[in-house]
C-alpha cells in the first residue's frame, strides 16, 4: 500500500488490547457508582415512555400452561391441564403434578453437585438477550379478541406427532382447543380437555356468569385506562377476577426488569391462585427466574413490553448458554439452553431473532425428549372452526 500521512499516523495508534483485570477494575468502579446512585429500581419509571393503556398481564396458572401442555401429551393426566401450577418437570418428566409430592421426593438421580457447570456461552448471553428485548419491542400488539396459535408436539416413545390449535380469548383467557390425533398411528390422547377432531370443549357455548362479570369489569377498566397515560396496572378491584391467559393478567406484571425479576421469583416460589409452587430444593433463584420467564415468553398473549422486559431480566441471570442456530423446523433461531441446578432436565428454547417470539421449545431428560414447535400466531375477532376436521 502507498503510505501517506494518515497511514503513518494510524500505525502510531496501535495499542495493546484491554487487559481483563483493568476492565474488571473499571467495571467495579462503575458498579460502586451505580449502587451509590441507587439506580437499580430506584426510579424505574423515570425516563420511560408513557405506558400504553393496554398491554401487559397474565395469571399464575397460565404461566405454567406451556409446560402443562407439553406434559399432557400422551399422559393420562388430563386434569393437570385444568389444575396447572406446575413450574418444573422433574426427572420423571411431566408426571407428578402434585407439588407436594414433588417437594417430598426431590430428584434422586441428580444431587445438586452432580450437574456440571454449563459450558461457557458461545455468544455473550446478555448481548443477545438485549437484542431479543429490542426485537420484541418492534412488534405491534394486535387488538383482536382472539389469539390463534398452533403447535406441533412430539415426544419420545409416542408415535408420530400431535398438532394442536389454541384459540385464546384475550379478554377472559378462555381457550378453545383443537387437536389432531397422532398422525401415524391414530392414537388418541387421553386428555378430556381436548376433543380430537371434535368440537371445542373448553369454551362453554355461552359465557359463564363469571366471565360475563369479568368482561364487563374489563371493559370498564379498559375505558378508564385508555384515558390515562400511566395509571399503572389494573387492580384486582377494577378488573375483577383475572382469568388464566387473559391479557389483563399479563398486563398486571411489571415491565421494569428489576421489579419483574422480583415478581417472577414470587410467582415461582409462593402460592398463587390457591396453587402451591413446585418448589425444587436444589434450585437457585436464577433457576426459578429463568424457568418462570421461559414459561411466560412463549405465550403469544404476552405484550411486546413484557416480552422485552423478560429478556432484560434474563440478561441479568446466568447459567444458560446462547448460540445461533435453527429450530427443529429449520428456522433461524437464537438457541437458549439451560441445565437447571440439581435436576437432569435440560430446557432448550428457540427464539426468533427478528421478533423475540418463541419458535420452539424442547425439554430433555434421560430417555425422554419433548418437542413443541410453534407456528406463527394469527389474530381474529371470531373463533375459527376446527382446522383438523375433514
Amino acid at each position, binding site marked *: *500500500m*502507498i*503510505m*501517506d*500521512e*494518515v*497511514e*503513518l*499516523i*494510524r500505525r*502510531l*495508534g*496501535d*495499542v*495493546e*488490547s*484491554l487487559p481483563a483485570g*483493568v*476492565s474488571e*477494575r*473499571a*467495571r*467495579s*468502579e*462503575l458498579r*460502586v*457508582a*451505580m449502587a451509590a*446512585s441507587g*439506580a*437499580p*429500581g*430506584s*426510579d*424505574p*419509571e*423515570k*425516563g*420511560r415512555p408513557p405506558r400504553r393503556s393496554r398491554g401487559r398481564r397474565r395469571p399464575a396458572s397460565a404461566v405454567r400452561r406451556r409446560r402443562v401442555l407439553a406434559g399432557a401429551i400422551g399422559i393420562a393426566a388430563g386434569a393437570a391441564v385444568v389444575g396447572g401450577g406446575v413450574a418444573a418437570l422433574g426427572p420423571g418428566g411431566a408426571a407428578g403434578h402434585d407439588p407436594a409430592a414433588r417437594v417430598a421426593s426431590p430428584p434422586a438421580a441428580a444431587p445438586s453437585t452432580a450437574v456440571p457447570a454449563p459450558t461457557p456461552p458461545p455468544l*455473550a448471553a*446478555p*448481548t443477545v438477550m*438485549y*437484542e431479543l*428485548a*429490542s426485537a420484541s*419491542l418492534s412488534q405491534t400488539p394486535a387488538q383482536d379478541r382472539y389469539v390463534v396459535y398452533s403447535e406441533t408436539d412430539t415426544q419420545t416413545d409416542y408415535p408420530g406427532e400431535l398438532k394442536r390449535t389454541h384459540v385464546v380469548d384475550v379478554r377472559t383467557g378462555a381457550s378453545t382447543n383443537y387437536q389432531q390425533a397422532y398422525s401415524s398411528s391414530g392414537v388418541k390422547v387421553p386428555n378430556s380437555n381436548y376433543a380430537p377432531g371434535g368440537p371445542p370443549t373448553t369454551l362453554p357455548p355461552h359465557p359463564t356468569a363469571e366471565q360475563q362479570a369479568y368482561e364487563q369489569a374489563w371493559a370498564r377498566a379498559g375505558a378508564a385506562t385508555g384515558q390515562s397515560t400511566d395509571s399503572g396496572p389494573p387492580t384486582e378491584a377494577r378488573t375483577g377476577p383475572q382469568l388464566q391467559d387473559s391479557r389483563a393478567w399479563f398486563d398486571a406484571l411489571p415491565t*421494569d*426488569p*428489576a421489579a419483574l425479576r422480583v415478581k417472577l421469583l414470587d410467582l415461582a416460589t409462593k402460592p398463587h391462585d390457591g396453587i402451591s409452587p413446585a418448589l425444587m430444593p436444589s434450585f437457585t433463584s436464577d433457576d426459578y427466574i429463568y424457568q418462570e420467564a421461559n414459561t411466560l415468553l412463549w405465550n403469544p398473549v404476552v405484550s411486546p413490553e413484557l416480552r422485552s422486559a423478560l429478556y*432484560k431480566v434474563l*440478561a*441479568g441471570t446466568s447459567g444458560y448458554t446462547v448460540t445461533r442456530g435453527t429450530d427443529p423446523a429449520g428456522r433461524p433461531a437464537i438457541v437458549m439452553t439451560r441445565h437447571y441446578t440439581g435436576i437432569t432436565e435440560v430446557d432448550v428454547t428457540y427464539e426468533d431473532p427478528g421478533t423475540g417470539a418463541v419458535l420452539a421449545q424442547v425439554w430433555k431428560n434421560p430417555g425422554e425428549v419433548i418437542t413443541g414447535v410453534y407456528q406463527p400466531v394469527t389474530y381474529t375477532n371470531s373463533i375459527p372452526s376446527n382446522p383438523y376436521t375433514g
Partner: protein
Amino acid sequence: MASDSELIKWSLAGDTAAFVEVVDRHEAAVWAYLVRRAGRQAAEDLLGEVWTAAFAARRTYDLSFPVARPWLFGVALNTLRRHWRSQPVGDPRADLADLAGRSVMSDPWPSADERIHGEAVLRRALDQLPADEREVLFLVVWEELTVADAARSLGIPAGTARRYLHQARVALRDTPGMVALLDQYNTVSESK
C-alpha cells in the same frame, strides 16, 4: 439488536445492566482511546472514571443517536482534561491540556512517544497542529469515526470538523521532511 440509545434509555429507567451492556460494547475502543492519548498507566487509572462519568451523565445523552461511541469519546476527553489539569505544576503536560484553547502545544501521548523512534518528523508535525485539528484527525484515523461523529464527540459543528481535518492534513503534508519520510516508506517498504 438493541441500540446504545435504547440501552441508555433503559438504564435511565433503572436497568443498570443495560448500561453495563453499553460498556461491553465500547470498552475496547475507549481503552484504546485513552492509551493513545495518555499512555497505558494513565489509561488504567482513568477507564473506571470514564464509566462513572458516563453513567452520571447519561441523562444528557441525545437519544436520537443510536451509537454511543462518539459520546463516550467526548466523556473520555473530558476525563483526560481533568487528569491533565491535575498533573503537578512543572509537568509540561499540565498546561497543555486545554484543547479548546487551540494553543500550539504538545498534548501528551507518551505511548506514541515511545513508539515513534525515527519518526520525529511526524511527531513534530503533529505537535505543531492546533489541538482541535489534531483531535479530529486522531478521532478519524485512530478511532475510525466519521467526521460527523468526530464533530459530535468534540461538540463542534460537522463543517468545522471537516475544515479542521482538511487543515491538519495539509499542514502535515507541508511539514518539512514529511515528503521525504513518505517517499522513504513508499520506496523501501512497499508492503504493509
